[in-house]
């Protein structure tokens, strides 16, 4: 619909590529800075123990059908018994760690903000100021006019197709796009991975609440009360013997030699 614009090839050389380099280098620097600023999380023995108990109870609920009924009931009794069931009777001292009172969480939050959000804003703003006044690239899919003020920051043309975007949006595109490059160069758990950090911030609020051990225990107790034992091995012989065993590939000429 819109006529094809021919961009100056200097834009490619002096805008597109530098923005990619800048984004990448900033990401690498963020990774190393986050390593330097890492603080050790000290967990108490009780916390570790409780989290493992909760995992065990969950596994019992999910995979209890693989063990005999008697064993399942024995474990369910251990957890849920009225008088001395573990989940029913263990009370932990609850200290809710709100961000204001718990100093370590506060510093963690600040560090997270400083290393991730702040550079992004600063550099985004700088790029916007430096590389303003021209379109940088075109996104391959058509966009509505609503996106114009967001993606075409410095350009005041009403008739310009919204697919043509400015350098600031190219920068943001890079921030998310270079994630896979980071995992190739820096290895899996790298600190430059912004979107992963944002995901963690959102889910971290739901998971890492150590004060809620009591609530977690209560929730597990209820869930376990409701679980029934459906033995997965009821008809296993019939299923097995309905056809011949698949012995292909078992006996090849070369046996693997012992390794010790």
């Amino acid at each position: 619909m819109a006529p094809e614009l021919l961009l100056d090839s200097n834009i490619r050389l002096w805008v597109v590529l530098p923005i990619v380099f800048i984004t990448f280098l900033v990401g690498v620097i963020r990774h190393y800075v986050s390593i330097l600023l890492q603080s050790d999380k000290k967990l108490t023995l009780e916390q570790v123990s409780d989290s493992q108990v909760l995992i065990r109870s969950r596994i019992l609920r999910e995979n209890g059908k693989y063990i005999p009924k008697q064993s399942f009931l024995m474990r369910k009794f251990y957890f849920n018994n009225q008088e001395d069931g573990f989940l029913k009777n263990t009370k932990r001292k609850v200290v809710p760690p709100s961000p204001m009172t718990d100093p370590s969480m506060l510093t963690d939050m600040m560090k997270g903000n400083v290393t991730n959000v702040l550079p992004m804003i600063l550099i985004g703003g700088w790029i916007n100021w430096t590389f303003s006044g021209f379109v940088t690239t075109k996104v391959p899919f058509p966009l509505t006019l609503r996106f114009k003020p967001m993606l075409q920051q410095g350009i005041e043309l009403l008739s310009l197709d919204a697919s043509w975007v400015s350098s600031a949006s190219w920068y943001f595109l890079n921030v998310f796009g270079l994630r896979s490059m980071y995992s190739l160069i820096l290895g899996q758990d790298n600190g430059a991975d912004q979107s992963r950090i944002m995901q963690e911030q959102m889910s971290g609020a739901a998971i890492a609440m150590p004060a809620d051990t009591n609530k977690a225990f209560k929730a597990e107790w209820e869930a376990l009360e409701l679980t029934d034992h459906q033995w997965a091995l009821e008809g296993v012989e019939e299923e097995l013997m309905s056809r011949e065993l698949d012995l292909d590939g078992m006996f090849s000429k070369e046996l693997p030699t012992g390794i010790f």
Partner: protein
Amino acid sequence: MLYESMSFLYYLNPEKYKLRKWREDNHRNSEQIVDVGEELINEHASKLGDDIWIIYEQVMIAALDCSRDDLAWTCLQELKKQFPGSQRVKRLAGMRLEALEKYEDASKQYDSILQDDPTNTAARKRKISILKAQGKSAEAIRELNEYLEQFVGDQEAWHELSELYINEHDYGKAAFCLEELMMTNPHNHLYCEQYAEVKYTQGGLENLELSRKYFAQALKLNNGNMRALFGLYMSASHIAASPKVNATVKKANVKYAAWATNQINRAYQLAGRGTKENKCSVKAVEEMLESMQITMS
């Protein structure tokens, strides 16, 4: 992505890639590790970069297995220089003392680690292995039980405990440990098979039925598990031969045993195809099965 980067490493330095693979798969091929690792350390130390530290650790543990105290000592010294206050290095020092049978000193070493960090599982497990090495199985069992009360999720520990109980012939408790393992690893046919064997050893009609079911489950998970196939045959035959069962159960078990026999014969046929000894071994299996077979009325 990871596979590509690993194969890229292979061309750079195949020994390093081999060591890494062994490390990740938890192989205990200590002689090979010592050979490859020693060469790497002595000749290519500069090319390894930061990987050298984890290679030192891996080679040191392998050297302790092979009684290469000199090599273990060099690795330990390098690690101590690089990571002076590290608990991981302290644990390695403790392991070296264990290898020299200086159990008191090793125990003190681990206690000092635990003082700094009570949640350190490695040190606790080493202390239990000291007890096992000294032959004090009752104490080892007790300590391991206490450990498991704190760390219920440690599968390695559950497996170790089941082994200790089997050695003490306490099959009921061994079965409990194996149940934990079966729940956390429902698709592992080896745990099913081991559980079935324990139940079979316990004996009694109910346990035999359970063992037959779990042998069948192991076979279902892995059709090639010959041990489970034999186990299925044995447990089915035993149930069929027992005087306490009624006719339907007997008939069903005879059917199971017959099916198992078929599969065993098939497997031996397949195994020996093309070799001269084939006829002898197949005949031997048939005779063995016939001699074990209890005639049904």
